[in-house]
């Protein structure tokens, strides 16, 4: 017997591998190889009921091509849609970049633990991002801005190779103009232009210059591994403890359910136990991250 699932059905799929259908509402070109996709679930009920935490991820399906995990770049405080920022890297991401507004894709999730938003309340938050690593941070940043009273000061240090590689350019301006938010932008040396008003230098160097205080603060960082490595050195120098530093890890995550067996670091499954970890947790891992 074959059961055709109607797009209007409000029943959650019993089949844990079956994606929800979503339409692409809007596509924004962030950089030469990064696009942000705004997705709206076809099921009206699901559109209202789909909730998630910043830092969680979804499995994004292009029917007949493949499925890949991406972090949710939108904030749960903005209801009715979700957004993913996707860099063209391989077969699935190429197919996603070829999509047009109105196309239908499959979404499973949300999966993973997400950022400890509750524990962040009443604290100063320092965001350190590089390149497309700003995507999961963006989810949390908008969440924090939309619930501004729950959090203390926000410092954002964001950099990319060049001005053209900075993502969310319009939003960066909005963040800059938000009271209590201090945004510092930087580009790698050589990536600047004559009219560039931001910093020139690698993210860890600029972070040191911004010199945030570790008192009542948490750092949330995401970016290329080499940036993370030196950000940790800088934070250590500034007396941040490893409990105060939070990041999201990347692994090949096929099922997102802790079952397919490939995303583990020791006994920890990044898709289910992560992808968000403190550095205190990461230091306990025997396997290299």
């Amino acid at each position, binding site marked *: *017997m074959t059961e055709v699932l109607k797009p209007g059905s409000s029943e959650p799929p019993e089949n844990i591998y079956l994606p929800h259908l979503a339409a692409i509402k809007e596509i924004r070109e962030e950089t030469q190889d990064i696009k942000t996709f705004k997705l709206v679930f076809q099921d009206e009920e699901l559109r209202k009921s789909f909730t998630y935490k910043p830092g969680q991820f979804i499995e994004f399906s292009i029917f007949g091509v493949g499925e890949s995990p991406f972090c949710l770049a939108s904030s749960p405080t903005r209801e009715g849609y979700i957004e993913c920022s996707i860099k063209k890297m391989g077969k699935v991401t190429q197919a996603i970049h070829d999509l047009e507004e109105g196309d239908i894709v499959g979404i499973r999730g949300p999966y993973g633990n997400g950022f400890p938003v509750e524990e962040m309340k009443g604290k100063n938050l320092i965001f350190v991002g590089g390149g497309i690593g700003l995507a999961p941070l963006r989810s949390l940043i908008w969440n924090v801005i939309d619930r501004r009273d729950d959090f203390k000061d926000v410092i954002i240090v964001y950099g990319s190779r060049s001005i053209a590689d900075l993502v969310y350019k319009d939003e960066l301006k909005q963040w800059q103009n938000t009271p209590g938010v201090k945004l510092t932008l930087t580009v790698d040396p050589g990536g600047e232009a004559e009219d560039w008003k931001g910093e020139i230098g690698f993210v860890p160097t600029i972070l040191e210059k911004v010199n945030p205080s570790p008192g009542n603060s948490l750092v949330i960082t995401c970016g290329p591994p080499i940036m993370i490595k030196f950000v940790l050195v800088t934070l250590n120098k500034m007396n941040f403890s490893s409990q105060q530093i939070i990041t999201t890890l990347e692994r*090949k995550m096929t*099922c997102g359910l802790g079952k397919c067996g490939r995303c583990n670091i020791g006994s920890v499954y990044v898709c289910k136990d992560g992808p968000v970890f403190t550095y205190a947790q990461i230091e306990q891992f025997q396997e290299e991250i």
Partner: protein
Amino acid sequence: MTEKIVSKEDLKKILEGLMKTSELLAPGKEGDLVLFKPVKNPEEVFFAYPNSLKPVKEFFFPPREELFKHEIREGKVGLSSEHQENRKRVIWGVRPCDAKSLLMFDKMFDGEYKDSYYLEKRAKSVLVGLACNEPLDSCFCLSLNAGPHAKEGLDVLITDLGDDSYLVEGITAKGEELFQGCGKESGEGERTRKKELEEAAKKKIRKTCQPPPDLESFFEDPYWEKVSRKCISCGVCTYLCPTCFCFDLSYEGRDCIRFWDSCSFSPFTKMTSGENPRREKKTRYRQRVYHKFSYFKKNFGEIACVGCGRCLRECPVKVDIVEIVNQCSKDKTKD
């Protein structure tokens, strides 16, 4: 728990009955191999075998399984998934080690995210165990909380007492049901005979698996490079392992397929960025050992190995995971 004695003729009749009412799978010969397959004739059901080449996991977690279909018509996408047939399925002649392995699968496929494909097949299946009287040199179930006559995971256990008589021990209601109205009550002599057979079988199992309690402390040891050198990363050990469950998902035309994968393969963990946390063979072999003897134990309370010995018997280059695990602490002190 009921116990009874049945004759070879009784078993044949039961098999004939089950063929009509259920999907019946049992070990049969295929050339030199013993494999579980649908029973067409009760005479072909094979009893005198150490163990089947492949474990029974494929009947719950097939090597290739369609999860859903998609259809795109005029810009609209339709998804459909097949309902499984609910007909009762009897798997006859399962060895205790393989039955135990399914309890580990249950832990994996149940839990927070329930895998209906697996769980539905489990719910409709009855496992008829066959006690192991002639274990092989490569068997080591005894050291892993299993045993040649163990009942864990089975619905009923049959012991061949010789002389065409069999002791049937009911374990669950659905197991007992299969033997309702046949055979006779067991006597003291038969129960003694069964105990003797069990003890004799246990004595034949000399191989023991004894992972060091501090296995974690050897993680960085050069030992793993040394012991994995001859492994050819063919994945045979993982495909034949009754407790290995790693899989991949893929689209094939309109179908979304789940198929077996293996931690032995380098692309298993390779990300699109090119980064691969387990690119080196030693890290993959270590993953296999640690997943079974450390991670699974940490996450689910027991070692993910039942001692069936298939990986030792079928490895083309004779990598012996038991020796490797047993020796790792000794090797450390030698270096």
